[in-house]
């Protein structure tokens, strides 16, 4: 790729005025690409080591029994049924609350709100909210959702947890929705307006369909952040020993039932002295990773499919 003894096309006259010093420029290029390669490899290797460590510890423990058993004091009999169901149940509630609010707010801010100072202040604050540590959300939720709203949420319930996580990922959904809407070419909006459509019709019929795949991707990635969330849920007191599943009928009972999730169960097992529990934790992490990866895969699949539909 890099010619070492290259033929020079420069005429003697030009050599006096331009001194291209190609050799040293190529040396710099090689240096920089090597540094970039090392940076990439460091990230990949750390990830690979972590994964290998977890797989070695956890894979032998992983079985159907492990997934379908409740937690137990004896490591060999302990399973992750209630945390896994709790995670999925919590995530569904979070999605139901956060997606409509987040996408709606994103649409309003991007398409309808006038460019006033207030809108700018809101915009900056949403950006800041995305960077607030999750434990702060946990403290807020403990006061508001667990204590003040106890008649509705039932205290330390899965509903309170879902609302907490919704708060946590709302800024992410809003920001990614706005990014997606901004990606729609303005010529499409103008085409719509020029035909005598209202703003809402332009948004509904043209902007949203085009932005939908990106909105979907951003939303699922936000949910992926929620699935690994621990700190704020510990703050609101998600229990770690749950030996029952939430009753879904009536739904109010299901929403108000206590819960635990995979990250909290893992945290609990890791902090115990017996090494068998550590293997359980590794196995739980594998399950969590599988859920996470399948969510991301769904995001990519849905995005590609709706892009294909549009291009047909």
């Amino acid at each position, binding site marked *: 790729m890099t010619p070492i003894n290259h033929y020079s096309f420069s005429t003697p006259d030009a050599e006096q005025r331009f001194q291209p010093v190609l050799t040293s420029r190529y040396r710099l290029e090689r240096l920089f690409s090597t540094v970039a390669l090392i940076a990439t490899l460091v990230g990949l290797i750390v990830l690979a080591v972590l994964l290998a460590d977890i797989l070695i510890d956890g894979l032998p423990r992983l079985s159907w029994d492990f997934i379908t058993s409740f937690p137990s004091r004896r490591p060999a009999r302990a399973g992750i049924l209630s945390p896994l169901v709790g995670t999925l149940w919590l995530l569904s509630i979070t999605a139901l609350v956060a997606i409509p609010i987040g996408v709606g707010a994103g649409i309003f801010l991007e398409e309808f709100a006038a460019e006033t100072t207030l809108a700018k202040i809101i915009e900056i604050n949403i950006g800041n909210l995305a960077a607030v540590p999750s434990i702060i959300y946990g403290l807020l939720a403990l006061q508001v959702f667990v204590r003040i709203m106890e008649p509705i949420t039932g205290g330390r319930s899965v509903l309170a947890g879902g609302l907490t996580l919704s708060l946590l990922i709302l800024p992410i959904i809003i920001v990614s929705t706005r990014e997606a809407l901004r990606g729609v070419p303005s*010529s499409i909006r103008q085409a719509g*307006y*020029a*035909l*005598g*459509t209202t703003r809402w019709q332009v948004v509904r*019929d043209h902007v949203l369909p085009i932005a939908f795949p990106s909105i979907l991707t951003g939303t699922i990635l936000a949910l992926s952040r929620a699935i690994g969330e621990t700190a704020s849920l510990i703050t609101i007191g998600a229990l770690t020993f749950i030996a029952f599943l939430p009753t879904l009928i009536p739904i109010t009972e299901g929403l108000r039932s206590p819960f635990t999730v995979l990250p909290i169960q893992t945290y609990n097992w890791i902090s115990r002295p017996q090494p068998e529990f550590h293997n359980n934790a590794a196995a739980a992490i594998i399950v969590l990773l599988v859920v996470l990866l399948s969510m991301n895969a769904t995001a990519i699949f849905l995005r590609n499919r709706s892009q294909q539909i549009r291009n047909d």
Partner: protein
Amino acid sequence: MSVLIKARGRGQKGENQETKDNKDEQLILLLPFLPLTFFHPSSALRPLSSPILYPQKPMISSASVTNVVDTESVLQVENLSVYYGSFLALREVNLEIPKHKITAFIGPSGCGKSTLLRCFNRMNDLISGARVAGKVRYRGIDLYEANVDPVDVRRQIGMVFQKPNPFPKSIYENVAYACRINGYQGNVDELVEQSLQSAALWDEVKDKLKQNALSLSGGQQQRLCIARALAIEPEILLMDEPCSALDPISTMRIEELIKELRQQYTIIIVTHNMQQASRLSHMTAFFNTTLSDEGARGGYLAEFGTTAQIFNSPIQEATQDYVSGRFG
């Protein structure tokens, strides 16, 4: 919802016998004003039965109708200035757009010709910071009056853009959407076919109406955009450099199409191509730029007349220089 008011037409004397409004009755569509009344703060000031809306314009005696341009005007621009923020983009334009004629706007970049065009269907509303002073009268109503709904204006005054911008939907859907959104009551299939035929596109696409519009060539896409604009039966068609993104053959086809359309529509076309202006238009407005006191370069209407006059015997030297290609 639809409220149709039949207004007695004006007397027939003095009307050009060939123009379309030579009917006993004029239908004036009130409908598009209605939805606004729910939202607009000043709607209460405007009872629905308030006098509608036909311009009282001076009649032209039939004996004098010899000159092609000597017909009634459909848009009257009075002292129109446009600001972007504090920048005066276009200064005090006075202009009358004749009905069923092609009017060309020419001039160097930044002279405000597109800005003026976008005032006619209030597309400037979409640019934050844009502000308009002065009047644009359409059917006797100032388009910038508080109780005028821009959505309704755009339904009457269609627009074709510089770059073809079909929706990323099927060819059929592109045209049908325009009809449906405006509550077309007739057979949509027929109107789609008719619109595509008017835009000289039907023969090329009739077998692939379900295909995505983006699969068409640039020229076909632009004709599709014209078909889409025609589908809602506008009175005026604004064209903002409709051929500037197209190759010469597509340009020729669009020009032929525009010549066809002038039978039924009032067309205002912005163009950088002076041959195009001279080939197509009856009237030409030449815009130029000038330095303001603060040193900002804004546009103004330099000269307006028949195309023949602007190109052959312009009054101003700048016009002469521009149309002969000496600058711009």
